[in-house]
């Protein structure tokens, strides 16, 4: 794992973070629930909590889908290539490329689209950045910079957990094992689909 320069993090007085979706995106409840699950994975291992709010400009974390140049100097590039980016604490901006073929539900590995990208996998990764983690060379980790299309990878690896717990400490209820009861099944699925490439 790595941290951003200066190791920025959310302050100890702000451990109950709020997040909001760009109203113009008009996301469905199904899509919003994907982000909720992604946040839950990080709160399971840290004392941080995440709660959705309707106040976009009052939220700690803001989530939006954009296409091409969207004003932050980091334009998106269409299908595949760069999928999303997020800013270090306490900025809170989380941007996703609106041109991607996002899959929010179901088994992404069976998608008929070779460019299908699993939304939850990308969300879990970008939330790591929002919390202060940089990229990792550990291929199994969530914070590894690349992900193949039609691949699901959502379980925090020990590398991710060690990193985020160095910033915030551990959730008192965290038992020190997996962040998901179905991690074995998911890991198997990841191996099956990891050779898809792009």
């Amino acid at each position, binding site marked *: 794992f790595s941290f951003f*320069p200066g190791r920025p993090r959310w302050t100890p007085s702000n451990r109950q973070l709020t997040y909001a979706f760009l109203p113009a995106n008009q996301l*469905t409840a199904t899509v919003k629930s994907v982000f909720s699950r992604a946040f839950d994975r990080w709160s399971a291992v840290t004392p941080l909590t995440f709660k959705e709010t309707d106040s976009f400009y009052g939220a700690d974390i803001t989530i939006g889908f954009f296409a091409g140049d969207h004003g932050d100097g*980091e334009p998106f590039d269409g299908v595949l290539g760069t*999928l999303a980016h997020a800013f270090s604490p306490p900025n809170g901006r989380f941007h996703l490329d609106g041109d991607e073929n996002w*899959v929010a539900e179901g088994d992404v590995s069976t998608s008929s689209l070779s460019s299908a990208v699993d939304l939850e996998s990308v969300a879990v990764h970008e939330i790591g950045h929002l919390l202060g983690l940089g*990229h*990792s060379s550990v291929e199994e980790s969530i914070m590894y910079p690349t992900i*193949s299309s039609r691949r699901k990878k959502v379980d925090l690896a020990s590398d991710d957990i060690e990193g985020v717990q160095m910033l915030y400490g551990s959730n008192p209820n965290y038992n020190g094992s997996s962040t998901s009861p179905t991690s074995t099944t998911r890991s198997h699925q990841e191996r099956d689909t990891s050779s898809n490439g792009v």
Partner: protein
Amino acid sequence: QFFPNITHDHSHFPNFTSNPAWEYFKNFTGCHIGDQRDGLAKLKQYFYNFGYFPDSPSNFTDDFDDSFESALKTYQQNFNLNPTGVLDESTLEQIQRPRCGVADIINGSSTMNSGKSSNSHSSNLHTVAH
């Protein structure tokens, strides 16, 4: 573009391919120091975007020079590839994979594999907004 239900009929959507610019990079297979290839400046721009290349984009040429070889080796180390400094197949395959837009090296700082050893670029890498 959302596909909440994976069994949804996608036939009315165009048949996308990979990002054309990144797909183009596979033409550089085998390229090494001393070579000059049309479009190599675009690959330097890629490395610049992700923090590996110190030069300003306006200075990019199509020459495979020392500084590009050094950036390439750092990239190969970060992604657990053999740090040959050559644009081999596995490196180009990695480059073409979809990825997060956040740079791997920010302000010369990285604790990916290359960060564990000295890095000649570390003093003058560019800063990205993230």
